């Protein structure tokens, strides 16, 4: 049996959990996949997970698991995993997983493979592909030793929408665990909020970003409408935020946020290097600019040389249809 450990915070499922389910389904090749989620008030998260093509959803409820602590998770999950005896335990390679998973594997004296990008079958063995030397090489690793083997899956390596869903909901079962509150040594403080940053652009999948080419504040809604049509966050380069046309928290670049969305649409941004370093990690960069020599075209995957006031509304309308 393959066990997936989903991640939730405050009753909200981390979307990387579905990526892990997709990986587990590939690895399982017919074997049953079970999803486990830990915390408190898990009903809605469990119901959401039950839509997946999984054997069952296990909830590990305990008051000592809220808020998250590495001690609490390690103790509770160790107890739960020992009751389940899976062949593999898969987790999304999130910050939280990085925090507790090595400790959990060490506590159970089992192997752990982190940041896995793909799973291969080779010569009857299952190999896990993971980057080495800052991503310059990848290695196929076959875990040894007694099961379960812990595997964490790199975010984005599998697609959440690839996780097979089932027409009928999987059963949900609560698994009691022994967790003594005195085992939890950490006392978490309220989560760090970066200067009341209401917008976390770094998590956005799509970003529509405006630069000086937008000319005046009254034109911002043109970009805003495109962002809405795309389901994207609105961002800007430095002069727009300096002028107060958009709040500072929407500034992308070296003096703003560093972003890496799947789609970055740059409208009237010339592409000063301070801006480029803040968005160069985007998967696909589309630039619209009047100036064919604008440096933004150096990094853009797709470039449109033209008037954004003609192109953007047309694009918005096309998307709406």
């Amino acid at each position, binding site marked *: 049996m393959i066990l997936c450990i989903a991640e939730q915070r405050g009753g909200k499922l981390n979307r990387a959990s579905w990526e892990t389910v997709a990986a587990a389904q590939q690895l399982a090749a017919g074997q049953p996949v079970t999803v486990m989620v830990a915390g408190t008030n898990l009903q809605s998260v469990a119901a959401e997970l039950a839509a997946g093509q999984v054997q069952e959803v296990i909830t590990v409820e305990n008051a000592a698991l809220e808020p998250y602590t590495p001690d609490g998770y390690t103790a509770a999950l160790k107890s739960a995993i020992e009751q389940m005896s899976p062949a593999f335990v898969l987790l999304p390679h999130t910050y939280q997983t990085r925090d507790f998973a090595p400790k959990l594997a060490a506590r159970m004296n089992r192997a752990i493979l982190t940041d896995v990008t793909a799973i291969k079958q080779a010569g009857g063995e299952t190999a896990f592909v993971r980057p080495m030397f*800052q991503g310059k090489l990848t290695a196929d690793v076959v875990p040894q030793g007694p099961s379960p083997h812990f595997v964490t899956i790199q975010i984005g390596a599998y697609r959440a929408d690839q996780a097979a869903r089932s027409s009928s909901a999987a059963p949900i079962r609560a698994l009691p665990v022994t967790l003594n509150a005195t085992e939890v040594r950490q006392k978490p403080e309220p989560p760090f909020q970066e200067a009341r940053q209401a917008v976390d652009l770094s998590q956005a999948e799509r970003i529509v970003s405006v630069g*000086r080419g937008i000319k005046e504040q009254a034109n911002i809604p043109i970009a805003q409408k495109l962002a809405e049509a795309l389901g994207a966050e609105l961002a800007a*380069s*430095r*002069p727009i*935020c*300096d*002028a107060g046309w958009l709040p*500072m928290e929407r500034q992308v670049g*070296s*003096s703003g946020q*560093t972003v890496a969305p799947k789609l970055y649409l740059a409208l009237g941004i010339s*592409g*000063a*290097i*301070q801006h*480029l*370093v803040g968005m*160069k990690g985007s998967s696909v960069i589309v630039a619209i600019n009047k100036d064919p020599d604008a*440096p933004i075209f*150096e990094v853009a995957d797709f470039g449109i040389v033209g008037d954004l006031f003609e192109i953007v509304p047309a694009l918005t309308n096309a998307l709406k249809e």
Partner: protein
Amino acid sequence: MSTIILWLLVLLFAGAFAAQVATRVRLIAAAPNTFSVDDLGARGRRFLVDVVFQRQTIAERPAAGLAHAFVFWGFVAFGGYTVTEFLHGLGIADLTGTRWFYTYRLVLTPLAIAVLAGIVFLLIRRAFVRPVALGDHVSLESIAIGLFISTLMITFLLSWRLDESSLAGRINWWTHLLVILAFLALIPASKHFHLVLSPITVFLKSIELGRVPNLDFEKEQVGLETVKDLGSKAVLDAFTCVECGRCQVNCPAWGAGKALNPKKVILQTQDALLAGKRETKLGEIYSEEVLWQCTTCGACENQCPVGIEHLPLIIGSRRGLVSNGDAPEYLGGVYNHLERRGNIWGLSYDQRQKFVESAALETFDPARHDVLIWLGCAGAFEADFQKSLRSLFEILRGRGVRFGVLSKERCNGDPAKRTGNEYMFQELANGNIEDLKAAGAKKIVTSCPHCVKTIGADYRHFGYQVEIVHSAVFVEELTRGLLGAAAGETVTYHDPCYLARYGGKVDEPRELLSRFGAAVREPIRNRENPYCCGAGGGLLFADKEEEPGSRISDVRFTQLRETGASTVVTACPFCSIMLKGAQSTAGTDLQFVDLMTFVNGRLSKS
């Protein structure tokens, strides 16, 4: 009777002087020795110019500087007079009746008038004009010292009129000597200690501006962490400070309203040393915020008339912070980029290769090429600066210069060095030195002043010497005798700190501009004392709006705009980035053009 009283007084006041001096000397002696007397010739010349002839004091503030020079020269001249009078008063020897002494007094008389005029001018300036550099409130001690000096001169002049044996004459004589004694006791604990220390401090100041010696990791050096780590020169500096505030008014961070004030940093050092806070962290003495606001432009150190070196103190303290993991967040990204990609942007080197190919650059071969062109990280990655490099290549090709580039470059290490990440700096420097040696480079040309300074000056301390010149200097020489299009365009020129202040290259860019038909309208803060663009010292990526004060780049941009010129000529990729950023915020339409692009444009038109 009066001889005994004078003996008692002299012992009392000289004792007070000696005790205070001893405290300070002990602190200097207890500090790790950082005194260096290399290059005696240059030190001797500077001593003559800056101490004897008071150049540094007069240059920036001619009126106050000249007044100070009179007081200084008077002081020196009066030395023999004071000694003679004391020898007489103490009953050791009486030379006062000699022909020689009479002549000496005659010579001193015009000087006394000059000193009196000087000190009255300075007193009025300090008490009533009150320039901002001298601090928020009038220093009573300085007023007292000023009145002391005036009294000394007046009593000297009165001595011509009063018979020494009369009561008035006796009072006059005693007043003169008592004031000298009081002065003596006041000196060590006040800014007037500079009159004892500054000749020594000026002599010991590094000849190279902003000399921050490499750390020796074998000796487990990690930089300055606490007060006790401050070297002997830094301790001497702290006691030498004359609080004139030249460092302060020239500091671009202070000018933009930030918390950093170099004068305050030196005075805080002094206070911490005297309070015996040996174990206190420097980040607490100065505040970490202050330490990270320095652009390392070098203005403070360069303008200081008493030989204080601010940069080793600030960069040394940064090293202490960095080695404890206390660097600001934005530097984490920069360090990551340097470590993983070898450049500050974190971009992949394919992009440099793309540029090298599109500009048809050859790999340097000493047999076929005259010079090696060092692209630098801006040249390798920044689109605007690449345009300027293409202009340079055209100029060189047009003049038949054969050049090549390294197949691979890494950052010269300037941002690591100036932000105190010494380990990373040495890694980058050693790697580059190895590559440059292997390539057989004899002469390097670059358009980046930071590369000139780091490769040319800082790499020397690894035992690597190579001739590296800025493109402005190289092209100026190359195009002598040529005439550009006569256009009469008015431009303003922004001197990069690392080219002008560190490198002293201020004439070549101007010569090029006028040779090719531009009238230069000088901004305030130009030539060897420019106002920084805000990018230096690793602050390229720290240019945040939220900080207290305005952006340094905005302040400089305004200064340039106020020249009324429609074109700003730059000669440094980072100045260009910062000032263009300021312009995009200001929403104005000044033209920015790199010097090489300007020259090439004019060359191709002619």
